[in-house]
C-alpha cells in the first residue's frame, strides 16, 4: 500500500469535493428557503461562467471587474426567475416544480449556447498550472483556490444567516406560514435565495470553467452537486461542505480501486451509488432536518 499516493488521492479528492460543495451550496440555499429542488443550478452555473466570459472577452473588462459585474447580473436573473416562474407555481406538487426547474435548466443551457456557441472556451484566471508540492504530495493550485472560495462562501453564508435578513430567511425555511403571519415578506425571501444561489453559480462557474473549460459540460455537475446536497442533508450548508469533502475523497480513492476492475469510468457509478445509498439509508442526509417524509 502506497500511503503517499493514497493521501495524495484523498487530499485532491477533498479539494475537488469542496468544488462540488461550491455547486451544492446553491442548491441548498434554495431548498432551505422554499423547499424547491433547484435542478436548474447546472444551467445557472453555465450562464454564470458565460456571462463572466462575455463581460471579460466581448466587453473587454478585466476579470476582477467582470466577475462582480456578472454576480450583479446573475443576482437580477435569480430574482427574475423566482418572480416570473417559481412564484406562480408555489404550493403545487413537487413533480411540477421539479419539471419547471428542469425546463429552466434546458432553456438556460439552450439559450446560452445559442447566444455564445458551444465551443469550449477558457477562463484564464491567471492561476498557475505548476503543481504545488507538499512534501511528496502534489496538489493542483486551481483546486486549492476553488476550495478556498468554497470555504470563504461557507463562512460568508454562516455570517449572513446571523444578520437580520439571514434570520428572516431562516424563519422562512423553518415555517412558511408562520413567517408569513408575523409579517416577513416570504416571496422576497425566496427571491433572495434564488438570487444568492445565482451568485454562487457565478463562483462555481468561474472555478469550474477554469478547470474544465467553459462549455456545456458545466451543467453535467448537476448529479454530483445533487449527491453532495442530499448527502449533506438538503437544507444544511455545513452539510454541503462536509458531504462535498466526503464525496470527493470517496470518489477519488474509490475510482482508483474500482477503475482497474471495471475498465475505467467508475466515478459516475460511485457518485450514483452514494446518492442511492444515501436516499435509501438516511434520506435526510448527514445534517438535514428529520422531517423528510418516508413512505
Amino acid at each position, binding site marked *: 500500500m502506497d500511503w503517499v499516493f493514497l493521501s495524495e488521492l484523498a487530499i485532491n479528492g477533498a479539494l475537488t469535493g469542496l468544488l462540488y460543495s461550491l455547486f451544492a451550496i446553491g442548491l441548498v440555499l434554495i431548498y432551505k428557503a422554499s423547499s424547491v*429542488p433547484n435542478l436548474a443550478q447546472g444551467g445557472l452555473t453555465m450562464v454564470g461562467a458565460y456571462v463572466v466570459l462575455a463581460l471579460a472577452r466581448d466587453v473587454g473588462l478585466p476579470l476582477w471587474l467582470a466577475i462582480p459585474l456578472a454576480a450583479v447580473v446573475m443576482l437580477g436573473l435569480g430574482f427574475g426567475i423566482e418572480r*416570473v*416562474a417559481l412564484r*406562480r*407555481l408555489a404550493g*403545487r406538487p*413537487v*413533480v*411540477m416544480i*421539479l*419539471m*419547471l426547474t*428542469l*425546463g*429552466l*435548466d*434546458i*432553456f*438556460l*443551457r*439552450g*439559450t446560452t*449556447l*445559442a*447566444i455564445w*456557441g*458551444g*465551443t469550449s472556451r477558457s477562463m484564464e484566471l491567471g492561476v498557475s498550472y505548476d503543481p504545488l508540492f507538499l512534501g511528496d504530495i502534489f496538489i493542483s493550485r486551481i483546486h486549492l483556490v476553488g476550495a478556498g472560495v468554497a470555504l470563504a462562501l461557507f463562512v460568508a453564508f454562516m455570517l449572513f444567516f446571523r444578520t437580520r435578513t439571514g434570520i428572516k430567511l431562516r424563519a422562512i425555511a423553518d415555517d412558511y406560514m408562520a413567517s408569513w403571519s408575523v409579517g416577513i415578506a416570504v416571496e422576497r425571501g425566496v427571491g433572495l435565495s434564488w438570487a444568492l444561489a445565482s451568485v454562487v453559480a457565478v463562483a462555481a462557474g468561474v472555478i469550474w470553467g477554469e478547470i474544465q473549460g467553459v462549455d456545456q459540460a458545466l451543467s453535467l455537475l448537476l*448529479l454530483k452537486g*445533487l*449527491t453532495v446536497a*442530499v448527502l449533506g442533508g438538503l437544507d444544511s450548508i455545513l452539510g454541503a461542505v462536509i458531504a462535498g469533502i466526503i464525496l470527493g475523497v470517496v470518489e477519488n480513492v474509490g475510482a482508483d480501486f474500482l477503475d482497474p476492475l*471495471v*475498465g475505467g*469510468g467508475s466515478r*459516475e*457509478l460511485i*457518485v*450514483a*451509488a452514494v*446518492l*442511492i445509498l444515501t*436516499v*435509501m439509508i438516511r*434520506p435526510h442526509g448527514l445534517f438535514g432536518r428529520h422531517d*423528510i*417524509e*418516508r*413512505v
Partner: protein
Amino acid sequence: MFYRLSGVHHANYVSDSRIFKVPADRNLTAFIFLIGLAAPFIIPSLYLNSYMLPWLIWTAAALGLNLVTGWAGQLHLGYAAVMAVGAYSSIHAARFGVPWEFALIIGGLTSSVIGSLFAFAALRVKGLYLALTTLAMQFVMDWVLTHSPAISGGSHASLQSPTLALLGQEITTDTGFYYVAFGWCVLVTIFMLNLKRTGLGRALVAVREKDFAAAILGVNSFYYKILAFATSSFIAGVSGALLVATFFFLAAPEQFSVAVSIQVLAMVIVGGLGSIIGSYFGVALILLVPGIVNGLVVTLSDGLGMQIDVETLAHIPNAVYGALIVIILLIEPLGLGKLYGNIRDYLMVWPFDQFKK
C-alpha cells in the same frame, strides 16, 4: 352546441362506468382512429415516417410513464433506462433468432423485471427523493450499457436491429412501420382508457392521493406500486424495442440517456398528469414544435436576409424546448390535457352556460 348535451348526468352505474360518457367524445375518437388508419394514404411518406411514427411510439411510451407518474403518483426519472432494457433485450432476442412477436414480449418482460427494481426505491421514499433515486439509477443503467460491449454491441456501441417481421410478414415499407406503431399506440391507449374503470386503476389513484389512507381502506400500496412500475415498464420496454425496430434501426446507448428520460417526463407533465389525450398533445408539442420553430427561424432569417450562425441554429430547438416546458407549466400546471378539457367543458353546454361553478 357541438356536444348536444346539457351536462353529464348518470342515472345508473352502467352509464357511469362507460369509457366515453359523452357520445361526441366517442365519435371524435372514432374519427381520429379512422384518420390514423387512413394516414398512409393521406400524408406524404416523409412526414409519415419522420413525424407520425415517432409521435405514436413516443405517445405509447409517455402513456406508460403516465401510468406510473400520473395514475400511481410515483416520480420516475429513469424511464429511458427501462426503455433501453426492453430495446436491447428484444433486439438481442431477435438477433438470436427468436420470432419478433416473442422478442417484443421478452423485451417487455425483461423491462418489467428491471423496472420493478425502481419500485423498490418507491417503497422507501417518495416525491423528490424518489425522483433523485430513479435519476441515479438511470445513471447506473447508462453506465452499465456503455461499459458492457456484450450488451451494447462491440466497440462502436451500436447494435443493428434485424428486419422486423410480425405474423410471418417481413415489414420493410414505411406504411408497414407506421401500422406497427399505430397498432401499438392504439393498444396502449385502449388499455389506459380502460384502466380508470378497473379496480387496478382505482387502487392506483388511491395510492397516489394518500398511500396510508389507501392502506386503511385495504389497498396494499406496496403491491400496487410494484404493479404500476412493472406494467409501465412493460409498456416502456415494448415501446423502446419498437422505436429501435421501426425508427432508429440501430440501438445506441445515447438514444436512452438521461436527457431522454427528462424528455419523456416533460411530455407527460406538459400533456397533463393522468390525461390520455394530454399525452398525445404533450408528445406532439415536445417532439415536433422545437423543429418547427427552428424551421420558422430559418425561413424568417432567409426572408429578412439575415445570417444566423449555424451553432445558434443548432441550439435554438433546445432553448425552445425548455421554454415550452416552462411556459406550459406557467399557463396551466395541469397541462395541455386540462386546457383541452376546459375548452371541451365550455363548448359542451355552449351557449347555455349552465356549468358555472
